[in-house]
Every structure is written in C-alpha cells, then in structure tokens.
C-alpha cells in the first residue's frame, strides 16, 4: 500500500473515519513519512489480529463541532463491502414492501349468466359459449392478477450482516456523520433547515442527506416538521423506520449516536448467541 503523501489529519474533509491523533502535525511531515523507498524488503509478519475497532468522530448537531471520538468494533462499522449481500437484502426488502393487491375478475367471477349466447351451428358465425368468455368485450380476464404475497425470505443473520455492511460502506466513504446527543433544530421552519443542510454541504447539490434520529416525530418535533417541507434536500427518519435501502440511497447519513447504537444492537444476530423465537430474543 502506498503511503499517503499528506498526513491523514490534513486529507480529512467532513469524513468521520479517523485515526487516533497521536502524531503532531510537524512530526507527520518528517522525511520518513514522505519517502516510500523499500528500506525493509521483508516486512515482519504482522502481529496476530485480535478484536479490532474503529473510531468515529462525534459532532454537535447544528454547529457540527467535533466533540470526541467514539470507538466501534470493526465487525459493526468496518466490514468489507459485500455487494451481493446488500443486493439480497434490498431485494428482500423490496419484495416485503410490495403490496400485491392487484386484482381482476376471472370469467367465473364476472357477474352474468352462463347461457349459451347463440346456437352452436347454423348461424354462419363463430362458436361461442357464455358472455363472460375472456375473448369477448365485457368478459373476464384470462389468468389476470389476484392478490398475493410477494415476500421472500432471507436468513436473519444475513440480513443483519447487510445492515452493518451498509453502515460500514458509508463509514468507509466518509458518508456517516455521527451526532452526539439529540438532533433537533431551534426553529421548525423549512428555510432554516435548508440553510443548515446547505451550509454543511448536505443538500440537494451534494446528493441529499438522510437524517436518522433516535426519537420519533414527538421527540424531534421541529426537525421533523422542518424536513417535511424540504424533501428535495433530504429526509428524516427515526431509527425504527429505516431500512437497508434507505441507508444506501442518499448522499450521506447523519445519525444520532443513540440511533446508530440501537441499529447496531438490533442487527447483530450473526455475532451473538441469543436464540430468537418468532423474532423475539
């Protein structure tokens, strides 16, 4: 892996992925960090991998001041991007959301008589049975849609892995902004919310944003009211309403720490040993 020319503290934009800032800036500029010559042709074998963790920066909400770091296990926020797993989760969600309410009347359900409408022979015209034949106007639909369940199944462990994979993907791209505390506005006006989003580069021009809160519409009243008017700039959802597709759809996710941890806790069945009966641990 080539060494970065700039120290990581300088290349960071709004991203949340950071390293522990142990190095002084001046120290990071020393010649050793800039040269990538092969001084060690045989790198020593790495130390055994134990439980790993990554750091996320916690910000204050409207001001977006970095407050502190929060450590999360790599199994939660630094998983490899498995596009197949994400695909399966999203197809599963799409199938589950599908209403399947399309309904038509087949020939036996159409109201009407089963009387033969003309004699079998002698008229010089085509043979016909009753009026409700699919061939005739006003007849039933041949094998038309009936209400049905389109939902498919996905192993819970796989679905939970997809949740954390989606969050990890966002984290690695620097598109996961974690807010410390409650994400609430001082004013319920959409104009104010739009200014906040645009000031942080979260608006429509930068691919919109998904705001995820721990509390619902009652707890974050101003935020939900304000965002209702500016759907073109972003969306707000409480952590219970979010699904994997939501996490991947918009330009970035701005999530309360509590909401993030609730999501992670809810979706770790492949890591924990708790047995679930009908989804209840």
């Amino acid at each position, binding site marked *: 892996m080539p060494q970065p020319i700039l120290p990581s503290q300088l290349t960071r934009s709004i991203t949340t992925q950071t390293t522990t800032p142990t190095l002084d800036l001046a120290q990071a500029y020393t010649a050793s960090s800039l040269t990538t010559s092969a001084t060690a042709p045989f790198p020593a074998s790495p130390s*055994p991998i134990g439980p790993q963790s990554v750091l996320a920066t916690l910000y204050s909400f409207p001001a977006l001041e970095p407050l502190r770091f929060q450590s999360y296990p790599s199994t939660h926020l630094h998983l490899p991007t498995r596009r197949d797993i994400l695909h399966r989760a999203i197809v599963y969600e799409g199938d589950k959301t599908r209403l399947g309410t399309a309904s038509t009347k087949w020939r036996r359900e159409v109201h009407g008589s089963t009387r033969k409408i003309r004699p079998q022979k002698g008229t010089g015209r085509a043979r016909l049975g009753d009026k409700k034949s699919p061939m005739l106007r006003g007849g039933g639909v041949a094998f038309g849609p009936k209400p049905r369940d389109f939902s498919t199944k996905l192993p819970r462990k796989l679905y939970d892995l997809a949740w954390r994979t989606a969050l990890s993907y966002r984290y690695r791209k620097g598109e996961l902004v974690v807010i410390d505390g409650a994400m609430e506005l001082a004013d319920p006006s959409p104009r104010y919310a739009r200014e906040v989003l645009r000031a942080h580069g979260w608006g429509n021009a930068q691919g919109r944003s998904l705001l995820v809160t721990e509390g619902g519409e009652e707890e974050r009243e101003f935020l939900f009211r304000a965002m209702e008017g500016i759907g073109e700039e972003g969306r707000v959802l409480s952590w219970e309403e979010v699904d994997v597709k939501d996490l991947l759809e918009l330009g970035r996710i701005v999530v309360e720490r509590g909401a993030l941890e609730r999501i992670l806790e809810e979706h770790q069945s492949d890591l924990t040993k708790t047995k679930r009966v009908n989804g209840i641990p």
Partner: protein
Amino acid sequence: MPPRLQLLQTWSGLFSSQTPSLAPLLAPFLLPVQQQRAASILSSLSDNPGAYSKKIRRGRGPASGKGKTSGRGHKGQKQHGKVPAGFNGGQTKEEITKGPRGFLNHFSVNMSPLNVDRLQDWIDQGRLDPSKPITMKELNDSRCLHGVKDGVKLLGRGSNQLKTPVNIIVSRASTSAIAAIEAAGGSVTTRFYTPASIKRVLRGQVDPVVSLQSTIPRKDLEYYRDLAHRGYLSHLLGKNDSPSLFFRVPGAPGSKKRDGSKKKASAAKAENRIW
C-alpha cells in the same frame, strides 16, 4: 490540487507574450471540479454470478436452444403431459427389478483438509497466532477453515513454505505435514473428536485440548495410540507395545515365538509314538 495549479502557472508563463488572457479561460478546466455528482451504490449491486441460474425460456425461438419442441422431443405422452417418475411403460418397475445401487458406508469420515501453505499464509496475515496452540476452534474462528466436518486433517501441500514453528492440534495429520511442521521447529498432536465434541469445541463450550471424555472406537484408538501419527494416546504405549490392539510387535516378549523347541518336542513325540 497543487500539481494542477503548477501546470496552470507554467502554461500561462509559456504563452504570456502572445495570449495573456489564456489562463483565466483555461482555469475552469484545469481546476478540480468542486461539485461531484453523488453516485449511489444501489445501481451497482448484484448477486454473485454463481449464486443464481438464469431462467430457461422455452419456446422462444431457435436461438434460445429450447425453441421448437421446448426440450420435450416429439409426440406422445412425454411431449404433452407428465409420465410418472420411474415408469417403465407398464413393465415391472426399475427399482423392483434392479434394486438400490451402492451402499452407505457408516464408517467413512469426511475430514476438513487443511494444508500447510494455507496455515503459513494465515499466520503471515496475522489471522492466526502462532505463539498459542492452534486448534480447530482457532482455525474456524479465523476462517482458515469454513466449518469443520468430521474433524481436521493436516496435509502437506507447500511444505517448503512453512517457516513458523507452531503447536497445532488436529484430528489427523499426514506424514509429510508432520515432517514439515517438525522441520520448522513446531509440534503436531492428533486428537480424537466426536461430531458432538466438535460442535461443543467450536461453540467454545469445551476446551479443545483438555476436557474431552468419550469412548473411542477401536480403529480410532489404534490411530491415536500410534506415535507415527503423533497421537495423543501414544504415551500410553509401553516399550514393546504395538499401537494395534490385535497384533503384537514381532520379537517382543509375549508374542508368538517361532523357535525350533516346539518342533523338536513334536518330533520327539512322533518318535515315541507306538502306532
């Protein structure tokens, strides 16, 4: 981006005498784009190519390969409907005339293979800790093995690549693998695991080395008594004991002697016979 700004400066320096107003014109093209279009990952998601099979579209033209007769051949019940499985046209059924084929070997084991080069690779990546004993639990947890079937058998592929001394405990080990591990300064122990104990070990309920109590089948007992297999029961063998429970070591005390004394005795008996 500094390099592009330098390019801009040199460019404007070159043409300053002729076209002094070129740099401002070029600036929008040389400067990095400020706004990037957000490309969602959603459009590039797909399942692995091998995870699903493409639907065969029957009766959709000759190019599909299943066009004309849709793979059903010509004429008859098979073309138009269904024929019961194993139906022989009314003759005695095949499973009655021929009977079942083959047999199920209850004694066969399905060992998960582990090669020495893969072991070394995992150690090099830091995914296995060579300072601690390596058991099936460590191998499974590090995904060096994707599940353990009836046990782990250590095999000798890439023996020359092994450099790290390791202490490894497996179900079985090949001669070349044992040689490779011990040449690198490590040690191999083979241990008996029942399917149930493998489950418990992988769950972390039972120590993979110490607390295993089970009755061992005779053939396994003989395997693990053998020092050549580095069996964990090889210490039970005395100096002249054989790992086999049936055959003694030839020449050892207690084994059948084929010396001449018996022959002589029988010869003497024959001489003393009256009849």
